[in-house]
């Protein structure tokens, strides 16, 4: 195959000046990290509450949580993103929709991508929290209640501390997934890492160099996440317990 390799392309200045192509990739990396981390924080909070709701003996709460999970887990991420970005502003009252559409386009794209990733991942976190809670012996719940704890106290002091330790390893893969899933935001024009990589191809026609660089940067993010999560798992371990020992 007669491909013309040129690794120096990263240090070449972009046509608009002021930065290099590597600078583009790094600014994309920043956006990827920002959108993924903020979405992850929301996903953890939403997932934790919804996961608890799915296991409580209250038909309304568990119903809401079940609907949430089924809707967000069973539709494609790309479709959800398009709904957040293109359909939502049209469904809102005209004045609010127009107000949203007139703010800075970068912010519009960022907010749409963050909400989309957060609620999609939140549904998956929710299912893991639920399975973590269900994996505990039902006796723990009874013991908590028998000691005079209220139901929220039982969750807070007895069930969740164990359940969350058990689901730390699958949570790590969700955390890794959210970074990789964030690449869909390039389809609504958010200039994150994948979009900057694609833009580099368009400007320089050096497809392989830029895709290799994007791959390496995504892997670097994920190595950092894995190391971090291993540390957290090690620190949170309770000796002699499922998921811990």
């Amino acid at each position: 195959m007669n491909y013309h390799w040129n690794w120096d392309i990263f240090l070449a200045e972009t046509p608009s000046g002021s930065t290099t192509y590597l600078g583009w990739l790094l600014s994309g990396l920043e956006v990827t990290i920002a959108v993924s981390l903020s979405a992850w924080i929301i996903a953890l909070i939403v997932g934790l509450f919804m996961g608890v709701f799915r296991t409580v003996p209250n038909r309304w709460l568990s119903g809401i949580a079940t609907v949430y999970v089924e809707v967000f887990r069973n539709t494609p991420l790309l479709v959800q993103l398009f709904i957040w970005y293109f359909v939502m502003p049209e469904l809102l009252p005209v004045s609010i929709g127009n107000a949203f559409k007139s703010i800075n386009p970068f912010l519009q794209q960022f907010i749409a991508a963050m909400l989309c990733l957060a609620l999609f991942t939140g549904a998956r976190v929710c299912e893991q929290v639920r399975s973590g809670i269900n994996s505990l012996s039902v006796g723990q719940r009874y013991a908590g209640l028998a000691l005079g704890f209220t139901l929220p106290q039982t969750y807070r002091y007895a069930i969740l501390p164990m359940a969350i330790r058990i689901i730390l390893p699958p949570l790590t893969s969700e955390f890794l997934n959210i970074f990789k899933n964030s690449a869909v935001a390039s389809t609504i024009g958010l200039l994150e890492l994948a979009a900057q990589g694609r833009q580099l191809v368009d400007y320089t026609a050096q497809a392989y160099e830029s895709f290799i660089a994007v791959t390496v940067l995504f892997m670097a993010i994920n190595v950092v996440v894995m190391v971090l999560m291993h540390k957290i798992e090690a620190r949170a371990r309770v000796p002699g317990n499922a998921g811990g020992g």
Partner: protein
Amino acid sequence: MFNRLLLAAMACFLFSTSVLAAELTGTLKKIKDTNTIALGHRDSSVPFSYYNDKNEVIGYSQDLMMKVVAAVKKDLKLPNLKVTLTAVTSQNRIPLVQNGTVDIACGSATNNLERQKQVAFSDTIFVIGTRLLTKKDSGIKDFADLAGKNVVTTAGTTSERLLRKLNEDKKMGMNIISAKDHGESFLTLETGRAVAFMMDDALLAGQRANAKHPKDWVIVGKPMSNEAYGCMMRKDDPQFKALVDKTFAKVMKSGEAAKIYKKWFMSPVPPKGMNLDFPMSDDMKAAFKHPNDKAFP
């Protein structure tokens, strides 16, 4: 007498096989060996290369590409040549041409110097100007009116590049939205997120023809650049390129290309039966008169 005849026959035989065997190289050899030609097309570049409602590939560039297929059939004497069609995007078309997935890709690809380092371009098949699509009552007449506004363009196009450069050079304070494809750019314009859509004028006419109310939209502004579209082929394959260029030169000079132009740009086209009403520019007439493969500066 007999010997001389034999000699002549042998010479004839040797000569004819050498013409076929020794001369075929690169893509033409591959086509001859596999009895297959692999074409690359686009899926939504109206009216250059796109699907109709029967899922067939149609368009101006597609018609020209089929002329190449006919020429290959004739020159290589392959009446049963198999044709495979692969949809390509603006991101993957160069790698797919290079690695042999497609032998030739005719769509709406601009011939420029960066791309010439990776692939070869045929003679120019179309010339466009980069302009603006906007609502009739938006008050926008030219690029200068865009200062401080939201403007959309399609990611990966020359328009994106020119718009960003204009924004920085003239400090216009535009918010530039880069949408994934032309359809999405137009959606961004239609939903009011942007006041104008910058793109190749022929593609803007195609998007307008697809709009809910085509009459609401106008194409304005002095072209910021002119660009030449060409078909992409593998580099360093002079034999195939010569065949393609010869085919195009023939249809351009015989007036056949002008007919194809009329069919796609001056008559109703699928999917909605709209007429793009896009008369041939002087640059295009010149390209048809003197076929060449030069990129515009």
